[in-house]
């Protein structure tokens, strides 16, 4: 038996932090710097914030005798992606007053605000909580924002699924008082493990933990990329229970084959009533068995990959004290959004708005943020963030529809989805300038790539064919690029790896097709393949399936063969 490996540094930080307090309060008071101490930077993630710096400005700051342009990103939890008009207005106001004037709709149905400086962090937190929202556990080694299909068509089922999502979110929210003490001037309380963190304990989880709920046939929330998912099983219009899927994830590291994206395995079925308990127990198994020595190997996907799905199911059933039922049949057709107007069974209307890169902002040509603010002022329904970074103005009563339509018209949003199917099927992560881990552009660059590819799509007559296309600035995979039909993953400035062959419904991983492509090479490489697809695809064949059938890439069965069967030409420049 060899020496036990030492725990990862973050484990010590958590243990010493007295339930996530650390020295954050002291750090906020020191205004000689806009940053926090290394340890506190890790800890505020649990509070929903990341310290960042404007990477566009980095080169010149020292010259001006200034430190890096530090600021904080805040992630606002929106369980199931549903926010009220009031919450929208509050978020919009905060973005204007304290952040960079934009709202980022994330790939996990949350709001992100960027560019909040240290002196404003606390008052921003207060503002968010005043609007009955919070940021706790939006990041950190805990359960993250719980996703839920916002599908408006089957509202009764959606309502039930959403309730499950919100119950799980509540149940798994850390209960430390640190958040209230530091940000909301809550009075200090003595801490004893049981009362403080009955579920997590003082070291919380080995790593982040992600839960979604999908309502087939839509897989918009990409259940296969999540630690734990519930697939709604609907029988004659009613939600009866959920299939349970575990062990999905995207993140990997270039040049480290021990890291890889992995698809979740569907392991069983539970009733609606059992869902919260199942969520808790899956999390507990990972809490107890997850690898706390290596943060690149600590996600649930590796726990399951190492010990096997059967082991996991057996262990889970032990924790549950009962067995999950056998998986029930379900079908996913795609993981995209349905744009434009739909009417639901209660006669309410829903408008799905395309939001490029999920960035809600005003430009002279397109004052979208203002438009949405005006709508929020009169809207009697709610707003729903989709996992594809888009926005649904939902539950518009028939008497309000005309008014909302007029505003959409006025602010140029009425035609938001009259774009190529390719663009409507795209996702770009934040990347530069705020993301500290970005190796290349994504949100600021994908639109240009799309414009160039759209020419090819036009020529090839593919204007209306949806191909999922996603770009991330690094292999952490925040835009879930490894399950899209076309995936760009940054390797360096203007250098992208091109992955092909992902499943149109997010049910299959892609494979590396070419390495280190720049803008021109991306076009040259993809154009012939797209033309080939247009000519030789079979009836209803998706692009991801076509490239495999045509031998451009080998199919990837599961995470552990993601790095195998890569064609030599892929890596030879």
């Amino acid at each position: 038996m060899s020496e036990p490996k030492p725990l990862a540094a973050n484990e010590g930080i958590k243990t010493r932090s007295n339930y996530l307090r650390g020295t954050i309060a002291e750090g906020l008071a020191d205004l000689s710097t806009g940053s926090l101490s290394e340890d506190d930077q890790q800890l505020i993630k649990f509070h929903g914030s990341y310290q960042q710096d404007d990477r566009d400005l980095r080169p010149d700051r020292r010259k001006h005798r200034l430190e890096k342009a530090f600021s904080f990103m805040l992630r606002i939890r929106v369980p199931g992606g549903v926010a009220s008009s009031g919450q929208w207005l509050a978020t919009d106001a905060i973005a204007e007053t304290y952040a960079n004037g934009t709202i980022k709709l994330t790939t996990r149905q949350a709001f992100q605000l960027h560019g909040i400086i240290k002196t404003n962090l606390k008052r921003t937190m207060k503002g968010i909580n005043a609007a009955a929202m919070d940021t706790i556990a939006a990041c950190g080694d805990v359960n993250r924002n719980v996703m839920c299909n916002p599908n408006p068509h089957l509202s009764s089922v959606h309502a039930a699924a959403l309730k499950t999502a919100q119950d799980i979110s509540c149940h798994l929210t850390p209960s430390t008082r640190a958040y209230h003490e530091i940000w909301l001037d809550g009075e200090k309380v003595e801490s004893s493990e049981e009362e403080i963190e009955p579920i997590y304990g003082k070291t919380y989880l080995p790593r982040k933990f992600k839960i979604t709920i999908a309502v087939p046939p839509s897989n918009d929330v990409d259940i296969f990329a999540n630690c734990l998912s519930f697939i709604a099983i609907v029988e004659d219009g009613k939600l009866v229970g959920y299939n349970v899927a575990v062990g999905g994830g995207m993140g990997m590291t270039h040049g480290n084959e021990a890291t890889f994206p992995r698809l979740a395995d569907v392991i069983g079925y539970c009733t609606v009533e059992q869902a919260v308990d199942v969520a808790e127990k899956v999390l507990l198994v990972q809490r107890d068995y997850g690898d706390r020595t290596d943060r690149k190997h600590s996600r649930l996907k590796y726990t399951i990959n190492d010990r096997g799905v059967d082991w996991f199911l057996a262990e889970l059933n032990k924790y549950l004290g009962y067995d999950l039922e056998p998986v029930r049949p379900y079908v996913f057709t795609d993981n995209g959004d349905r744009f434009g107007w739909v009417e639901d069974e209660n006669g309410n209307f829903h408008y799905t708005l395309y939001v490029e890169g999920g960035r809600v902002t005003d430009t002279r040509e397109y004052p979208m943020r203002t438009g949405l603010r005006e709508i929020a002022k009169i809207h009697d329904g709610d707003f729903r963030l989709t996992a594809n970074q888009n926005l649904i103005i939902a539950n518009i009563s028939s008497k309000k529809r005309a008014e909302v339509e007029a505003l959409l018209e006025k602010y140029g949003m009425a035609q938001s989805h009259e774009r190529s199917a390719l663009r409507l099927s795209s996702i770009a992560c934040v990347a530069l300038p705020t993301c500290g881990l970005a190796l290349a552009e994504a949100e600021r660059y994908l639109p240009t790539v799309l414009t160039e590819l759209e020419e090819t799509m036009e020529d090839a007559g593919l204007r209306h064919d949806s191909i999922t296309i996603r770009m991330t600035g690094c292999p952490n995979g925040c835009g879930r690029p490894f399950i899209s039909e076309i995936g760009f993953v940054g390797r360096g400035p203007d250098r992208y790896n091109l992955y092909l062959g992902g499943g149109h419904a997010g049910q299959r991983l892609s494979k590396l097709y070419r390495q280190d492509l720049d803008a021109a090479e991306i076009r040259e490489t993809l154009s012939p393949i797209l033309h080939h697809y247009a000519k030789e695809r079979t009836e209803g064949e998706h692009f991801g399936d076509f490239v495999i059938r045509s031998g451009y890439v080998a199919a990837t069965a599961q995470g552990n063969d993601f790095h195998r069967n890569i064609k030599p030409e892929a890596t030879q420049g």
Partner: protein
Amino acid sequence: MLPEHAPFSPAQRQSLAGLITSFTPAQRFWLGGFLSAGAGAGAAPAAVASSGASTPLTILYGSESGNSEKLADLSAKKAKQAGFKTVVKNMADVTPSDLGKVENLLVIVSTWGEGDPPETATPFHKAMMAETLSLPKLRFSVCALGDTSYVNFCQTGKDVDARLEAYGATRIFPRQDCDLDYEDLHAAWLENALKAFGPASAAGSNGGAGVEVISSLDLSGFGLGSAAAAVYDKKNPFQGELLERVLLNGEGTAKETWHYEISLEGSGLSYQPGDALGVVPVNAPDVVEGLLKAARLKGTETVEISAGVSKPLADALREDFDITALSRSILTKLGDLTKSKKLAKLLSEQGADQFRDYLWGRWIADAIRDFAAKGLPAKDLVSLLRKLPARLYSIASSPLAHEDEVHLTVASVRYHAHGLDRKGVTSTYLADLVQKGGKVPVYVNENKNFRLPDSADTPIIMVGPGTGVAPFRAFVEHRGAQGNAGKSWLFFGDQRYTYDFLYQTEWQDHLASKALTKLDVAFSRDQPEKIYVQHKLTERSKELYSWLQDGAHFYVCGDASRMAQDVHEALLAVIEKESGNTRAFAEAYVEDLKKTKRYQRDVY
């Protein structure tokens, strides 16, 4: 031609050479003797002085940035040479009633703020305005220093002059009001005032001939006024190399604040933290162009810049004259030249408000466009203008930390007014016209009223928002170099934390090395409500008061118009609150801080 190494500016060398060749051998012989006698312009030849019976004379000055003080010393020297028994007194050290014992009095005082006396002369001025004395035996004359670009020109001098008259004293020579180029006017005033005073003046007049010759040569204009004065001064600045220029605001800012490093190597100039550096600018080409266009002149016309010295108009406008700052005196002269009704009305009493509004954001060229649409002859144009004044900048470096260097923190003045992009002469001369490696004409302007405590152990509190932080960079560097014994606390403020935190990385280093003990910052535009340094003082009330109780010195530097008052108010409030005592107590407390030099301000 004079040798390169002669301590004169190129302009001076040229004009001197011209003069000297024009002299008769006799004149040169006389001049040589005169100068070597260590005397200066307007002074009576030393030989004459001894023959004067000695009349007692008191020279009383009030000074903020040292000009009046230097003139007082210079006057004393001249008066002694003219045979007077002279004493020099600072208004800071006397009360009006002390004047009871004085027979002959010369007053030299400047005006600050918006017509206020110099900080240290405030009590004297206050008392004078309040008390009614009877001083029938007193004979006096006043020389008032000021700046015509301020509305209350020479106000303090006028006050003192009027009060002395009210006391029944005799004005033996009329008050002389001086603009920034005060040397010649002061020399003439002094000469005549000395004449006007009793016996010694007989001797004085003997020297009159000499005086005449000299002053028509206007050597005083070349800074030889006082043999004691430093070789390098406003009229004869040192050409310091610009070693480094750093923009202190980050991309995204609305400000433009520069850090300049200038070499003093070989100048023999020395300074202490708290001193200011005088910068002698030239006007920007486009501004010269603008004026020429307004006056409808080519610039090739030859003009006389001072008696006997001529050059092309364009050069004169660039190097010698203030061609932007508009003032009542310029408009008055312009009125006399043009007989413009519009202008006459503007200048008339009932037009007072319109007059202020008119001056705001306008330059001389605007006035010429408005009131002399047909333009002006070169001679008339020049007759409107005053000499181009130097500007002072608080020194931002400690000589202990940067040997043979002087650093400045300068905000570029740029604004848009009346349809034009406009700029400050000196700040943008430094920002736009001097390249790294180029030369900047500078001199050191001592400021005895802004000094670190004698003991390095005494705690210091420094309030310096914006460029007001400059002298505190010097203070903290100095304390650091001295082994940073005493505690130090800096209050800094500006518009935006991310872009305008001047010298942020340096403060971080000073905090790490303990040269700086505490740092509080206030940024006004990072949140909806405005936060300024005075708010931080109030927030820190308790600790601030305990520092003061521990003997801390309290320094304020920067904007005079609002900041200094607000900080003063905040200080009073802090003392009132923490002492649990009355407002009156707080005021007395602060008065005492001033008297004991524990409350010092360098505001502009």
